[in-house]
């Protein structure tokens, strides 16, 4: 590492930001979500240093739509969120792929294999590639995260289509050396010039747009062949008859596993999940008798290879998801074990972990949520009330000492699920929701419960910040004003710490109401300023 003067230790997420800055990004929008949160946090910290227009949007589809407006108007744009946010954005994302932004547009999402910070589900979002038909690149290291972000902007500008970067938690939150390049002064103003050819998604034009999109697959594939990606690595004295196909983080573990097992298999690393490097794959599998496909999550690449091999090499034996469970994250142990089975070598992992009591997460000392859960537990018999939980720090009410969360699905679901329970049962139901989650996805649920008449009690955990993902600011609108406008008749706003007795009494009183009711518990998070304090601190200072 001779250029040590230009090397920064960056998280994968920070490296994405640096790649965008070096590409001249002018507009960035996001909604925070771990493992992608540091992308937005970093932009928030450095936006005034590098003159980038940045916003924390109210939710992910809004973030994407804001980005679309900017990119349509000719400003280079980056939008970022976690995998669930990608789901939220899809209604706008798929039609976006049919249109033609006037500047480079890159959308970064982060999956969370092993659900380290995603309580609800483990999804492999690479599968969206077949709905989007947009180029999708997958880095495996922070340096690649930067390089692929730059490449994504380049592809986007050349083909006038958005390009997607797929991260996973282990790449987003991995620190590694990244070589700093030149940061461009961004263009942050543009102009929307009307064009039905570019932006119209009304039928029948929309079908023509789809045709044009599908036709781009081959030229983009050709273009990617000229780039330094999708490499085949041949070790000295490599095996001719078998090989490994892998991608992203899997490649890093494969490298280690080959050393551990003294294996010399050639490796094809797939960096472009869409379009796949078909020529490289064909060249790789043509003369082989067997290949091992090492991928985290679902067998996305494996399915494609199985189709391709029918043409090129029907006798090829393909191993993958039959050896690697599509649950949890890969690690060097799992990959070494799988490779040993593929090679027919003996290898075992000594399972030496001890049985120890799990240290479950809990509220910070001094957190106002202690007071809220404490009051609920004293006001009602928790056995006789249904608690509909939601996404935010208050989801830790699921853990001891409270264990007061019965349902949890996605951002904003608590109010609507509580409404549904209330429509069909006489049970008492409390819906939890945080201030930011309420603004993100809770509002339609409240309007629905008022209009379709049910009577859950909504408890709003208002700590004035998006605490769980790293203390991002949220819109300053008052939740009670929205509740009132939606038609909630019984509303109480109080401080759960200084007015704890009143909180208990109000819970008892409101649970007996025949109409929907809400208590807004307002007390700021102790660490509300922790991100704000870092504004102006750049991780890109050498």
């Amino acid at each position, binding site marked *: 590492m001779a250029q040590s003067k230009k090397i920064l230790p960056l998280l994968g997420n920070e490296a994405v930001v640096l790649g965008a800055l070096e590409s001249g990004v002018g507009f960035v929008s996001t909604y925070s979500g771990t*493992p992608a949160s540091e992308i937005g946090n970093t932009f928030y910290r450095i936006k005034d240093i590098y003159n980038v227009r940045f916003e924390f949007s109210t939710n992910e589809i809004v973030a994407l739509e804001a980005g679309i407006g900017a990119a349509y108007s000719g400003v280079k744009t980056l939008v970022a969120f976690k995998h669930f946010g990608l789901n939220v954005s899809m209604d706008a994302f798929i039609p976006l792929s049919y249109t033609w932004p006037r500047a480079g547009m890159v959308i970064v999402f982060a999956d969370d294999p092993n659900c380290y*910070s995603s309580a609800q589900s483990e999804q492999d979002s690479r599968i969206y590639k077949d709905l989007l038909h947009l180029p999708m690149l997958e880095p495996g290291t922070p340096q690649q995260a930067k390089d692929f972000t730059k490449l994504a902007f380049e592809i986007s500008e050349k083909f006038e289509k958005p390009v997607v970067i797929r991260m996973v938690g282990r790449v987003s939150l991995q620190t590694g050396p990244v070589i700093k390049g030149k940061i461009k002064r961004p263009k942050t103003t543009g102009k929307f010039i009307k064009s039905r050819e570019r932006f119209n998604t009304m039928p029948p034009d929309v079908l023509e747009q789809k045709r044009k999109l599908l036709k781009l697959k081959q030229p983009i594939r050709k273009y990617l062949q000229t780039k330094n990606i999708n490499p085949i690595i041949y070790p000295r004295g490599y095996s001719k008859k078998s090989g490994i196909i892998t991608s992203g983080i899997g490649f*890093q573990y494969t490298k280690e596993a080959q050393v*551990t097992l003294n294996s010399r298999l050639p490796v094809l690393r797939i960096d472009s999940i869409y379009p796949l490097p078909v020529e490289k794959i064909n060249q790789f599998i043509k003369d082989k008798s067997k290949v091992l496909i090492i991928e985290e999550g679902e067998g996305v690449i494996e399915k494609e290879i199985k189709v391709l091999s029918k043409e090129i090499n029907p006798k090829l034996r393909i191993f993958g998801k039959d050896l690697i469970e599509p649950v949890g994250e890969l690690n060097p142990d799992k990959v070494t074990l799988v490779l040993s089975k593929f090679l027919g070598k003996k290898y075992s*992992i000594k399972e030496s*972990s001890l049985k120890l*009591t799990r240290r479950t*997460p*809990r509220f910070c000392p001094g957190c106002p949520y202690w007071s809220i859960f404490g009051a609920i537990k004293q006001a009602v018999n928790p056995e006789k009330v249904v608690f509909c939980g939601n996404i935010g*720090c208050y989801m830790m009410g699921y853990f001891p000492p409270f264990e007061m969360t019965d349902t949890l699905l996605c951002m904003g679901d608590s109010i609507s699920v509580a409404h549904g329970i209330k429509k069909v049962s006489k049970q008492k139901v409390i819906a939890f929701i945080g201030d930011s989650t309420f603004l993100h996805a809770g509002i339609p649920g409240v309007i629905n419960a008022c209009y379709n008449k049910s009577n859950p009690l909504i408890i709003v955990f208002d700590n004035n910040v998006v605490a769980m993902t790293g203390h991002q600011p949220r819109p300053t609108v008052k939740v009670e004003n929205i509740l009132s406008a939606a038609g909630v008749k019984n509303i109480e706003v109080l401080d759960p710490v200084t007015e704890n007795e009143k909180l208990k009494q109000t819970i008892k009183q409101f649970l007996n109401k025949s109409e929907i009711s809400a208590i807004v518990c307002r007390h700021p998070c102790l660490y509300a300023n922790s991100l704000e304090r870092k504004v102006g601190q750049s991780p890109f200072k050498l």
Partner: protein
Amino acid sequence: MKKTKTYNLIISGVGGQGQITLKKILCQAAIKQGLDFKASELHGLAQKGGSVVIHFRTGKKVYSSLIAQGKADLILGLDLLEAARAIKFSSKNTKLVVNNLFIPFFKQSHFSEGDLLKLVKDKVKKINLVPASKICKEKLGNEIYTGVFLLGYLAKIKSFPLKKTSLISGIRKVLSKKNLLINLKAFKLGASLSENGIKRVKT
């Protein structure tokens, strides 16, 4: 250390013990010495009073950011129970350096050095129990310097690849001016810790 071998360090503790800061210092020290490195951390739920493990690997060329089971050269436990939790990364040759402190939680109020020794005695050859939090509280007025203090202690270990000077340069880069002097003091205190203060246990 042979130039080609990767050095594997696990830092295991409870969220809030400053693992991320230690990771940043280690990364800067590796850059200073022209070494490759990778580090892994967990975020989100795990931060709030849960177990937090940092993997840090440095050497000529590093691929995986995660350490394989049994492959740690050194485990630094910031808490007695969390040190035990990281034991799957150890082999007989792994050095175990443990802060003599237990942070209690709802389901467990007690875990002593005796409990740790009982659990790991047939897994590692040697354990160094360092009363780091106690010393930091007594001499520096606050336990929050424990991590940096222990980094100083690691710098004394012969096989540890990062030099004292590079770690100090890392501390200067990572920590704010306001906290710099006291952290440098903590580091030096750890680096000059008299051997009498450490309990070495051969198992």
